[in-house]
């Protein structure tokens, strides 16, 4: 049976500032942004390697720039974003129970805690390897 429709659906327009309405949306936007800062840091490290390849003088010039106040501030910001990136990633791992303990997925705090503990242990190990002999 054919029915006549008198519908007139109204589609709302979304504001570009939609994400400011909810603190969890803000955190999400910052988490997405953190990826850009991780890439920026990768480029900075590549730049450091490039300066090292240029010899002692070029590397010294790089270090003077690297330890300047604006670069210290930028590095602090990058560190903040990278930590946010890592912490939110570890929080995600709890959502995907790959192992089961007595037939049940392990509790989220255990999964996140174990991941963070391994992350810290590996970081400490790397720092120790880098600074061995200093």
């Amino acid at each position, binding site marked *: 049976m054919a029915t006549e429709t008198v519908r007139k*659906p*109204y*589609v*709302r327009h979304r504001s570009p500032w939609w994400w400011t309405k*909810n603190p*969890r949306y803000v955190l*999400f936007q910052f988490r997405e942004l953190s990826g850009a800062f991780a890439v920026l840091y990768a480029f900075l490290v590549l730049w450091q390697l490039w300066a090292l390849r240029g010899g002692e003088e070029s590397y010294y010039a790089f270090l003077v720039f690297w330890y300047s106040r604006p670069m210290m501030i930028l590095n602090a910001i990058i560190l903040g974003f990278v930590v946010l990136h890592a912490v939110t990633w570890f929080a995600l791992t709890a959502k995907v129970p790959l192992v089961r303990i007595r037939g049940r997925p392990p509790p989220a705090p255990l999964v996140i805690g174990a991941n963070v503990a391994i992350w810290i242990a590996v970081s400490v190990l790397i720092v120790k390897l880098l600074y061995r002999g200093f």
Partner: protein
Amino acid sequence: MAEHATTKTIKLRIGRYRPERSDEPFYQEFTLPYRDDMVVLDALNYIKDHIDPTLTYRWSCRMGICGSCGANVDGTPRLTCALYLKDLKKRPVLIEPLENFAILKDLVVDIEPFMAKLESVKPYIMRQDERPIERGEYRQTPEELELYRQQSQCINCMLCYAACPVYGHEEKFLGPAALALALRYEMDTRDQGSAERLAAIATEHGIWQCTFVGECSVVCPKNVDPAGAIQQLKVRAANRLMKAMLLPLAPR
């Protein structure tokens, strides 16, 4: 309820849209008698019964199981039957149709795109070897039921779609509830249609469009955790892809 001796009143600001009269939605404020035991739906029913019978909204069970009465209350998608007015701080209380959906009238939104998405994830048991009916039902242990019980609790209230900025950005996105429903059948030991179902959902507008905002799981009134479900589907789809690449001749 009008006969109750009450001195307290409450003001509601309700999003309205009357397609037969205007081209744009508008807001209308109502002041009505208030009691501490009123939920938002009670207030809407009071308005319809005593102030303005043209106010249009969906509701049925009043006990958080039918999934009809969802609306954005003070900006957050909620079941209006399960939300006490006394728990809301702002006045007037702002009630709007669920975000991200086209409005048909007042608080009623167009659910048809959502229904099509539910269907598209093949939410039924698919068998390779169909057993004759004389051999009885496909049995499961309580542990096997437990594997998908959480996802099976969905009441299709669509609060998760209203909370999902990805769906707000791209209406083709299959979205939280439909994908949680897909996992419900993926985890069902009676099902043998995983390849077909994953092919339907492991797509640009399927699981891979989800950026894990996570708000769907926050607003879900039934603790279905669609955000978690989608991440689990991503792992399943990725595993299947890797197996196909590394072991091309192995049976799948």
